[in-house]
């Protein structure tokens, strides 16, 4: 009871005495847990390496600068591969995600008890595995190269795109659908006129957003042999060619910045 009376005044407080005591106890428990964990982590850390870290970092920094600029001639093809992996992967994912999203959305699924769980399972299973792990699996199946990277990115993105899209489908204004239904439109016409126009902005936004994420993800796929600039990164790291590593990181940074700029522009234009 946060309101009590004293001297004819009604005093209002956010919490009653018991509630605020409870809050203090909760905070106390939280701090105790934090302190305990800190102690455990500290015990299993080799502090020598940690104290040494600034010196090592400085050492790598001096070796890595300046970047080996002439190496850029060998990076054109890999970064182009990386962009292709991201773009093709996103296109495939979006095409496959659309039907999955319609099957998963409460208001468009043909069967709530049979088909919807299957669609949700596809979404969860593709989303829960990182694209690096998909790439590892696919390299074992279809061999190393760009194609494995494209498929890895595509599979990883289906769930993401389908999930956001089916949420958009569930949030549409149902009266517009009702109005189209009332004209005597068929099931597919209701979809084309009542639903698709309403989810178009979400669809475009999701695709561009995922493409932007995929550019970043595809830069590391080469680490496991799935093509792209990650291949150069891992071989340079293996031979401790730090000036090459720093140049590759700069190229990746540039690619990511450009993709973010493009996706921001596109999304701004649609919404």
């Amino acid at each position, binding site marked *: 009871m946060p309101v009590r009376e004293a001297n004819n005044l009604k005093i209002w407080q956010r919490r009653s005495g018991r509630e605020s005591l409870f809050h203090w106890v909760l905070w106390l428990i939280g701090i105790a847990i934090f302190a305990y964990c800190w102690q455990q982590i500290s015990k299993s850390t080799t502090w020598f390496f940690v104290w040494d870290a600034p010196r090592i970092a400085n050492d790598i920094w001096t070796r890595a600068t300046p970047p080996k600029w002439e190496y850029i001639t060998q990076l054109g093809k890999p970064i182009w591969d990386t962009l292709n992996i991201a773009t093709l992967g996103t296109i495939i994912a979006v095409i496959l995600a659309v039907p999955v999203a319609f099957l998963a959305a409460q208001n468009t699924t043909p069967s709530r008890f049979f088909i919807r769980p299957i669609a949700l399972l596809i979404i969860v299973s593709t989303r829960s595995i990182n694209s690096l792990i998909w790439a590892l699996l696919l390299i074992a199946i279809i061999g190393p190269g760009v194609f494995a990277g494209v498929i890895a990115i595509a599979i990883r993105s289906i769930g993401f795109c389908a999930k956001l899209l089916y949420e958009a489908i569930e949030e549409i204004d149902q009266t*517009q659908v009702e*109005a189209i239904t*009332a*004209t*005597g439109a068929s099931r597919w016409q209701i979809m084309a*006129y009542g639903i698709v*126009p309403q989810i178009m902005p979400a669809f475009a936004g999701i695709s561009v957003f995922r493409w932007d994420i995929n550019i970043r993800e595809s830069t590391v796929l080469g680490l496991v042999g799935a093509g792209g600039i990650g291949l150069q990164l891992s071989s340079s790291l293996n031979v401790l060619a730090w000036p090459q590593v720093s140049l590759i990181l700069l190229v990746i940074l540039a690619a990511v910045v450009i993709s973010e700029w493009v996706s921001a522009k596109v999304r701004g234009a649609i919404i």
Partner: protein
Amino acid sequence: MLRLEKLVKTYKTGDQALKAVDIDIPEGQVLALIGPSGAGKSTLIRCINRLVEPTSGKVYLGDVELTELSSGALRRERRRMGMIFQEYALVERLTVMENVLSGRLGYVGFWRSFLRRFPQSDVDEAFRLLDRVGLAHMADKRADELSGGQRQRVGICRALIQDPALLLVDEPTASLDPKTSRQIMRLICELCKERGLAAIINIHDVALAQMFVQRVIGLRFGAVEFDGPPEGLTPDVLTTIYGEEDWEATIEKVDDDDAMAAE
């Protein structure tokens, strides 16, 4: 023309929205359905074109019994029932023209409608209707650029291009200002007269209903409490429909034609 026989709708929650409603509407009659919120007005008109499935009872449109129809036959019958909505229910991101033409969806195939290749006769009719409601110059605007009154006019065009025999009108004026409300009501009633359409108009505004329609039905708790000409709406009748209130002012407004002349 339209006949409801013992129409019952019970929602899954157990709420009985309609209790054995019998209504018979002759050709070309415009009818106002009044009643408090929750009386079942919206449910009633949605049970006619089966946007809401009635629990039991029969609905005859001409000779066709609607509640038994398969989904294909229902779609064909829905073409004969134009519907106009409270919040206009236009597809916001489509143009005015596309919204009007969507009234023809029941007549054209999927690919023609998907590619927006409607027959020229449909397009001609759409232009004629837009001209009739005074929106010919708006055909290319997106629906969300229009004002409330303009949107409702587009909604009316969409219903009429279906070439219906009956209009189902759900609170057409609820989100419009008083002047626009009158204009929209007058437009609907004029168009019904021009084309000889029957109409059921759900409406909150009793005075507005009395101004324009030939017959009023009062619904209360899903049952018909009043059925008669608008003059029959006495304070006593309104009390049985809505509950105790001072009704004199509401009814007086009927004679108040100065405001209309001033428009």
